[in-house]
Every structure is written in C-alpha cells, then in structure tokens.
C-alpha cells in the first residue's frame, strides 16, 4: 500500500464536507467514504462495520459491494481483525494473511481465497466507546505506511461524525438513536436487493447495481429508492429507465 499525496487527501476532505449537508443519505456517504479510503490507502477493498448495542456486528458499506465481500465482512462476527479491533479499541494490522491461519482459522483462509494478502481494522471511536471499524484489504502481503494508518484513522473519525450527524453529541441517547437508525437503513437496502432480484430475475449483486444505477441517474438517494421499493414496488415501475 502507498503514501498519499496531500492534494488528493485535501480533495477527499472537501468531498466529505460537501456530502455532510443537512439531509444526506448515510449509506451513500459511507459508501463514498469506504471507496475513498481504499483509494487513498492503496487498498484493494475497504468496508465499514458497525456494532449494535447488543454486540452484533453489521455490515454497513464497502468500496466493492458484492456477495463475496459481504461474506468476508460477516464472517468476522465470529473471529477476525474486526473482532480483535472491537475488543481492544485499537487498530489491528496483519500484513501477511497467508500466515495468519493460526490467529483466525476461519477468516484468514477465506480472505486468502478471495485474493487478499493483508488486512487492517481501524476502530471507529466515540470517546471511550468503540462503535465499529473500518476494514481494509490489500491484494498482496505488505504493510500500510505509518502515515497511511493516520489517514485511515482520520477517515474512520469522519465516518463516526457522519454517523452521529452532529459533532458534539450532547446526550448519550443520540448514539443509540442514530446507530439503530443506521443499522435499520442497511437492512432496507438488503430487502430492496431481494425485491429487485425477484422482479428483474437477476442475482443479488446485479440487483444492487440496478438500485445504485437508478439512484444515480435520477439523482435520488439510494436509501429513499430502497424504501420506496420495499414499501410499494409498483412505485418504481422500471429501474432500468434512463
């Protein structure tokens, strides 16, 4: 993984500031953030996982959203860098997944099989609490530069701010309210994928592409389109319409 030019970094933070307007779509924001994180860190893929307050992990967004990646995130409910990161509240780095089968007997072989050689988990922190983590996967073995780690941590902090939607969380209750809302909006996207897959006779990954493509072409928030689809599929008669 590589060093990041300062100008590119500045561009990303401007894009983040532009997105964090009043009524933004959280899932879309987190997707943008994971894509930029992967790009800036020179990683093959990046994803974001949140923990609910019962301790379950939930996938929220990734630079590459397909079934294979989703499984690689979800298997970390049991073991993997995310678990270790969440447990300790500290970043976890593994530069050689091929030699990590002892540490993560289920996760490591799957990650290698998916074509990855290294993995990182960077905590999303709110004061003393860890609410989730950014997960980075690299193609080959080999580490992230030290300044790369700092940048990814900064992006993880930005993700936390986006999630909480206000910089100064006055009440502890706000975390719960926003977190549960975020987790539920993710579920709606999955339900919408199923609706689309069935209507258009496509697989789940193609269904997501249809959902995302339609939202972009029509300048609609992906969360709103998904909600409309699961509430009344007839409200969006043709997702392939330009």
């Amino acid at each position: 993984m590589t060093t990041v030019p300062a100008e590119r970094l500045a561009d990303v933070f401007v894009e983040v500031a532009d997105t964090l307007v009043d009524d933004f779509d959280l899932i879309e924001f987190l997707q943008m953030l994971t894509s930029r994180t992967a790009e800036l860190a020179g990683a093959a893929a990046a994803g974001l996982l949140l923990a609910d307050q019962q301790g379950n992990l939930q996938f929220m967004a990734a630079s590459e959203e397909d079934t294979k990646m989703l499984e690689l995130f979800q298997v970390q409910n049991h073991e993997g860098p995310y678990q270790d990161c969440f447990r300790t509240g500290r970043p976890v780095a593994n530069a050689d997944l091929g030699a990590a089968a002892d540490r993560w007997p289920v996760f490591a072989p799957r990650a290698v099989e998916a074509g990855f050689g290294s993995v990182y988990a960077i905590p999303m922190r709110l004061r003393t609490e860890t609410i989730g983590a950014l997960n980075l996967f690299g193609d080959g073995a080999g580490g992230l530069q030290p300044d790369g780690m700092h940048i990814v941590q900064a992006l993880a902090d930005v993700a936390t701010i986006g999630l909480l939607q206000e910089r100064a969380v006055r009440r502890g209750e706000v975390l719960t309210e926003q977190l549960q809302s975020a987790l539920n909006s993710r579920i709606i996207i999955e339900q919408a994928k199923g609706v689309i897959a069935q209507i258009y006779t496509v697989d789940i990954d193609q269904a997501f592409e249809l959902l995302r493509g339609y939202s972009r072409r029509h300048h609609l928030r992906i969360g709103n389109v998904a909600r409309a689809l699961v509430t009344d599929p007839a409200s969006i008669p043709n997702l392939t319409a330009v």
Partner: protein
Amino acid sequence: MTPDDRFGSAASVQGFIAREPVPTDDLSPLVGGLQRLCGAAVRALSASGAVVSMMTESGSLGVAAASDDTSRLMAEREFVVGEGPCIDAFAFRRPCLQPDLGDGEFTRWPGYTAAALEQGVHAVFAFPLQVGGARLGVLDVFRDHPGSLRPEHLALALSFAEVVVTMLLDGQANAPADQSARGLDEALGYRSELYQAQGMVMIQLRVSLAEAMVRLRAHAYAEDRRLGAVAHDVVGGRLCLNASSGR
C-alpha cells in the same frame, strides 16, 4: 458490552418473561404473551410501565398490551395529542430516548410532556418494532424518575423489542425455546441473505414485507430447517415459496 456477551441479553429476556405470572384474564395467547412481556420489561429495566402499540403506515394506532393502566393511558393519550416518543420512533425508524421529560429545555412534545408529568412519568424510552422496511409498532418503556438507561438496560430493552417483533410475526406468544436460541445463532451468520430473501418472497407471494418474513419463518419451521438455510436457497434461486406453501 463485548461480543462475548451478545447471547446474554436475548437469553435473559426469555428468562425474565418466564418468571412473569401468566395473565389470568381471558386474553388471546398473543396478547397474553405481550402483556407478560410488558410486565417482564418493567421488572428487568427498573421501569414503572411498558406498553406495546401497533401502528401502520397510515399512522393509526392501537394498544396491543400494557403492563398497567397508566402505560395504556399514556399510549392512548399520545394518539390523541398527535405527538410523542412512539410517533417519533415510528416515523424516524429509530429509538426515541427521552431520559428527562421534566427538563425545562425539552420542548419537542409540549402536550405529551404535560400529560406524562401529570401521570408521574418522568422518562420515556420508545423502541420501534421493525425489520428494515417492515414496521409493526413501538415498545414504550416508562420510568417514574428521570435518568438515562444504563448500557446493559439499553441492550436488554433492544432485545425486548426484538422479541416483540418475533412474537408479532409469528402470531404466537411462546416460540419454542430452542427455536429462538437457534434463531439468534443464525442471526449472527448471514443476516444480509435473510433480508434479501425477505424482499424476494415479498414479490414471489405478493405479500407485505412483514408477511414475507412470517412465510420464511413458517417454511423453516414446517420443514424443520434452519432459517438461514432456507434464506440461502431462496436467494440462490433453488427455493421459490408459492402461494400454496406455508399457511
């Protein structure tokens, strides 16, 4: 809470419910079960009351079960004044936690707040009963003293809400104990696939999103298969629930 504790709260919800007396009134099994759950929630969460309200997309509201008359009254009052934690939790699809209704700076629901304080309710915590886009209602928990829910109470309250959702979907008060434990285990595995299957079944059977989850669960139960395995087959195109299957 660490990931190792994750089995804790759902299991203890069942434990709290089991310790509650069975209602003596002549109630349907579902309503009786919900009433028992409300009583259990009060005890488990050091609360003064709890109520399950049913809501629909069009906003109509009815109380399904309550631990006591004050809680039932509070839920009904909210419907009358048209504002309050239950309406907000449903509308915004997220918990609405108000630990101090007597806080002078809090003005979101003037009518509701006045009524609550009059009834001696000082804190209210409302949890939406939902699975993604499928919304069923809200669980309200009341306290007669101000103060936030401690983290372990919060986790437990969220688990109570999940148990209510399961009860409402299954339309029965008591899922077999081993089945709910199994459901939890699966929930940790491939939840995305379960929700994707739910969306597919909604179209296959032309039913609501909530009904689609009921059908998936019914199929798994009838065929004695794991819910996750059924969802996997639906998503993989190997299983298509048709109108004659299930109920």
